[in-house]
């Protein structure tokens, strides 16, 4: 489904380039793409190997056992750590979060978990952000967003109580 949407976008973009700059423009775009692919390929392969290993070493059962262990500030810290290292996309992580929450994990811990998985994911950062955006940007970005999971863990419970 998403491939169809993205493929459509790509075709649209190529048509736009054709209309604006002609075949030479499409060639130039392809050249930019090829250069980008070459510059990131090795790092992405290493990142994928790392991500695959994380999945073997850290099965989701371990993560869910951790999440059940703490509440309050400790729960937020555990949630943040688990979220940063949990491997997988939304189709893995959010069902996992749902089941952990159903078995009684705290709202703050869950918010920290999902936010850490969103902003400070270990493998996604190494695999995608570092190759594409470079070390300087990535380091500064990580430093600024590091406290975000804790903030989410502290702010979400009172808002949740209001909405419930």
């Amino acid at each position, binding site marked *: 489904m998403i491939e169809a949407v993205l493929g459509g976008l790509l075709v649209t973009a190529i048509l736009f380039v054709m209309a604006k700059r002609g075949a030479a423009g499409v060639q130039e775009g392809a050249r*930019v793409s090829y250069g980008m692919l070459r510059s990131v390929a090795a790092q992405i*392969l290493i990142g994928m190997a790392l991500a695959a290993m994380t999945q073997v070493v850290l099965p989701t059962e371990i993560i869910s056992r951790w999440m059940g262990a703490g509440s309050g500030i400790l729960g937020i810290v555990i949630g943040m750590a688990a979220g940063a290292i949990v491997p997988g996309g939304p189709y893995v992580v*959010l069902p996992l979060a749902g089941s952990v929450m159903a078995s009684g994990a705290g709202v703050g811990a869950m918010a920290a978990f999902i*936010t850490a998985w969103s902003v400070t994911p270990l493998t996604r950062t190494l695999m995608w952000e570092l190759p594409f955006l470079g070390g300087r940007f990535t380091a500064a*970005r990580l430093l600024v967003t590091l406290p975000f999971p804790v903030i989410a863990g502290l702010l979400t419970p009172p*808002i949740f109580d209001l909405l419930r």
Partner: protein
Amino acid sequence: MEGTWRLLLGAAPDLLIGIGLAGMLQVLLPPDMVGRWMGDEAGLLGLSVGMAAGALTPGGPYVMFPIAAALMSSGAGIGPMAGFVTARNVVTINRFLVWEVPFLGAPFAFARLLACVVMPPIAAVLLPAVYRLLHGKSGVQQHPSSVPETDAPREEVP
């Protein structure tokens, strides 16, 4: 090893589309335009454009990061890029509707979204300062790829 293959095969089509899109985007968006809308001098407008683009960009990291790289090498500033990446990571509209609400329930999903809404602006404002602190003023990128291109006219005047 097997797992690596599986990941690679799973991500490859999307990655190729993402990189293809990024290449076309770099041709479509002239550096002076990206600089005007998302450059370091674009101020509040640049930050807003960056965050809006981030929240709307579809697809996983294999699409978002190539596009971010294309914007960056076309002259987008550190602040707008921080807004772009952070908005894409925390207020992903797609993921919110498709995954968070069904699996975690609307009250929790909305509460977390509200708690996180302030994060992209915070990141966009703070990141340039931290970037300069970490890497020095000279460390701010000169966007080498945009330099030679501005010498030649990008569009022939008919």
